[in-house]
């Protein structure tokens, strides 16, 4: 069993700067959890606290039920992959991987077995006699993973391992990490600033900002039901559109008024709102680009916009639009079914119309930034 439990974990530096506030999380055995957020949000700090590389200012950290606050990193039975790989430059790949085993005085033949095994899984067997400086970035990354693998540790920590790779390699390695996870069957804690990695790799995602946890949930949960503006804007690419709108309560029903369009909310939304006793108010309306429909002609309930920029992505166009009250909206328009006239009408200043159904709308309170339905 290799569960990890963080209770009220805090990190406060000497100059009274708080990097991590009151972090609470329970990670189940063999779960793959991703800490994601912008730079400076405290995700790496939390990871390093779990590793034992930073002191825990307050709170309890338990690995497998045992409190490990005061344990040295080597006694916590964890393995870590660093962003810059941190391979020992003066040792061969074999020795790099074998280093930790030698420290534990594991017999040499067992070391041989484990190292060659790991090398085979990672596809680096032919590099075992080379030194790190003779390897490419991707190969080095694999060695770093190999070094962490052979320890058969309870918890596998990864600190932005793909950040130093180019885009193509990154995609490749992402897939390999998923495969690796199936082979290794350990608890993973992964830190990244890239929301794509978070979504594809994690069983659960922990979204952090400024030292606080904004939301914890499965990728689907944080995508479908973000609890606040930050999470909504962070997850999903292109970013969710935020528009100024008004929530109107009419009797038992609610509708959203935006730029002349009035969209009534569906049953679930209405019940959620009335449960919380929410009245009419100004709101920020969130709609994902992929959930909007683009119309070339005006329709009932559609919002009028003008085109600012038109980005050709190949299979689709990303249109940057401005609404009448100057909200910026991005929409995605597949190109495969467009007529020639439609294509030529996609110029700067031309008018487009967008609609979206009620169920894809996210409603946020402008002051608290929390979701009115999910928060």
């Amino acid at each position, binding site marked *: 069993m290799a569960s990890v439990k963080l209770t009220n974990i805090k990190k406060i530096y000497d100059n009274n700067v708080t990097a991590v506030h009151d972090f609470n999380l329970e990670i189940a055995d063999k779960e793959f959890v991703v800490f994601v957020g912008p730079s400076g949000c405290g995700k790496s700090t939390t990871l390093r606290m779990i590793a034992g590389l930073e002191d825990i200012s307050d709170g309890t950290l338990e690995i497998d039920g045992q409190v490990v606050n005061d344990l040295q990193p080597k006694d916590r039975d964890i393995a870590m992959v660093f962003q810059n790989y941190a391979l020992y430059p003066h040792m061969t790949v074999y020795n790099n991987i074998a280093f930790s085993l030698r420290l534990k005085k594991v017999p040499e033949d067992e070391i041989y077995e484990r190292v060659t095994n790991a090398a085979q899984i990672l596809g680096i067997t032919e590099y075992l006699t080379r030194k790190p400086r003779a390897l490419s970035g991707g190969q080095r990354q694999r060695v770093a993973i190999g070094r962490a693998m052979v320890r058969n540790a309870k918890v596998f920590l990864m600190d932005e391992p793909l950040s130093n790779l180019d885009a193509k390699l990154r995609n490749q390695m992402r897939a390999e990490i998923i495969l690796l996870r199936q082979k290794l069957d350990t608890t993973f804690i992964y830190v990244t600033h890239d929301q794509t990695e978070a979504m594809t790799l994690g069983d659960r995602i922990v979204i952090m900002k400024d030292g*606080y946890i904004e939301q914890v949930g499965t990728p689907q949960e944080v995508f479908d039901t973000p609890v606040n*503006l930050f999470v*909504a804007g962070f997850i999903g690419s292109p*970013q969710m559109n935020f528009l100024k709108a008004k929530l109107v309560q009419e009797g038992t029903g609610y509708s959203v008024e935006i730029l002349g369009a009035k969209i009534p909310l569906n049953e679930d939304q209405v019940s959620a709102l009335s449960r919380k006793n929410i009245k009419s108010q100004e709101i920020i309306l969130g709609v994902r680009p992929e959930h909007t429909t683009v119309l070339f002609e005006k329709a009932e309930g559609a919002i009028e916009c003008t085109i600012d920029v038109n980005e050709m992505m190949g299979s689709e166009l990303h249109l940057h639009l401005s609404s009448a009250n100057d909200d910026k909206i991005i929409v995605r328009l597949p190109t495969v079914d467009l007529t020639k006239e439609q294509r030529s009408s996609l110029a700067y200043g031309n008018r487009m119309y967008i609609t979206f159904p009620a169920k894809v709308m996210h409603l946020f309170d402008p002051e608290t*930034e929390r979701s009115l339905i999910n928060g």
Partner: protein
Amino acid sequence: MAPAFPVKNGENERIRKKQGRGLPMTNQGLGTGAQTPQRKSPLIVHILLAQVAVVLCCLLTWYLCENVVKKQYSDATYRTELEMVDNNYNAMGYLKGENGKLAALQYDKISDVITKKPFYQEIVDEMGLLHAEELKAGRPLGEQDLTAGRLMERVTWGYDEADETGRTITIDVTYSDPAEAEEIGNRLAEKLNEILTDKSKLPGPPINQPNRIEHAGLIREPVRTGPNTLLWVIIAGIVAEGVFLTMAYQTGWKNKLTCIIMGFANLSRGQVLRGLLFFLFEVVAVGYMAFWGVGWLQKLPTLGTVKTEHYALKAGGQEVVTYGDDSFKILLYGVLTIFFIGAIIYTYYQNVKQGRLAAKIEAAGKKLKSGREDLRSLVDDQFHKTLLALPVTGITVFTVMPIIFMVLVAFTNYSGTFDGKENLFTWVGLDNFNQLLTWTAGGSGNKTFMATFGEILAWTLIWAFFATFTNYFLGMFVAMAINKKGIKLKKLWRTILVMTIAIPQFISLLYVSKMFDKNGIINSFLQNMGWIKDPIEFFGDVNNPWLSRITVIVINIWIGIPYLMLITTGILMNIPADLYESARIDGANPWQQYTRITLPYMLFVTGPYLLTSFTGNMNNFNVIYLLTGGAPTKLGAYSAGGVSAGQTDLLITWLFNITQGGEHLYYQASVVGILVFLVVALITLLVYSRLPSNKNEEDFQ
């Protein structure tokens, strides 16, 4: 990816606070709720109890000092003299040999006779004294310690050195009891007389008259020594107050007891290693302070009062030297003791603090670190302590201590004459500074200290400035020249210059200084070329000090450029090439490139280095001393203790000369040293905060 609408930051903070995030920080690592165990009775009671205990301690100390600790009397010395009547006495004598038979022994000196064992042993046995040591033969002033079981006695033999036959033999007996001393002295003199005049024992010509025994008398009275009761009571009071007051603030009997028995808090909780270490420290500390520490501290305010005594009854007669206080040792050990007291207070504080922490940890239900864990952590998380132990100790003992000591010396009159042994030195307060900081000239026409100091300081600053910056810019220039594209054999040029760094500086400097001598190579060369007629006195010309100064700076360039070239080369290669390329496209000429790109970058990186180089040059002893020794010396320059200040002297070479000169005015050297430090520190502080490295770090990164 931030939301499209910027939300005010303050808002988030408020919202989060409302949601109850962010609890105040409590004890590190122990989680919320870790508390010091509560005390049962109110604090004031404990404090009052503490005061009672203090009073009891004082009374106890008083009692011990007055009645229990043995009062001692220092020894008395009684002198007897034996005068030989016959001048031509030939020192020969038979003495009892080892196996009891008479042995014929021939002596050249009387001292041999009287220091040989059998004779002495007789007396000792006769007197019933205990255990005489082997006598050491051959020393003109023989001194033997008879370490008896109860009493110490010392018998000193001496004879008139000028008169080899030993006309007068002096016997000094030092004994605790004056009467006994007298008796022993007399008996020794008589016995000696007996042997020397015993015809049966001497083969040589007989002595007709007996030698005369003169009773010289008590030359040193016994003096009562013992503990200074008042001092001890005061010390006891202070220490007790500290200990018991601390005790009052502790909770739990374990922590209270640790205030008296250091280490108890650890021992009683199973931490044997730490507990023992603390306890051992306490034993050592108390032992040292009681036996030696208080003694040194006592003498510190006066730096010793008991002078070294020389006893001589007859003019020209030989003396007994009794060493009194040594001011140097008092100052040294006194200061060390003060530091030791600081260490004691710190360790004591740690001891108590650990007790409190241990109590908290126990209350929270956690385990304390065992001895083995402590040792293991010394190579792991506490490894820095292990690594730093030796270097920091070295620095403390060999740099910090001497500096503190010498700073204190500036407030004494320690010098060659008042060196603390023969003549005690003492505190003079700010006298040295006042005396030396006068601006008005003395009547002799010599400059005062302050004026000379000002002159030397001015030259030191000028020297440091030019030495640093000529080397810097010229070195940079050479580095840039070598580095330029298109110059071949870069390595060769650099190697030639680097080679000159390898050669020990003193050889280069000494040789070059001789090259500039009156009959040296440079002058010969110039004369041979017909450019000058008379040799130029580069270093010795009193009327042309600036010639020497400039020569020194020029030679220093020769010494310094290779090193500067190395440093600047490394930095030059790090300047991104595209900075220059874009400048060239913008139309900058080489000079502009230099001033706008190269120079700012260099100054940024080497700013701190330039500063340390400047201050280092201010204290650059070798170059000046080996080249000129400070010469030329101007007439009318301040002369202190026979040492004049030269015109290429830096403050530091002047300082050196002061210590080396006839009177060894150490205190003056200290004053100069302190002033030098103040100047250098001031400059460093001023410049460091203004350095671009501190202000504009972002611009370059």
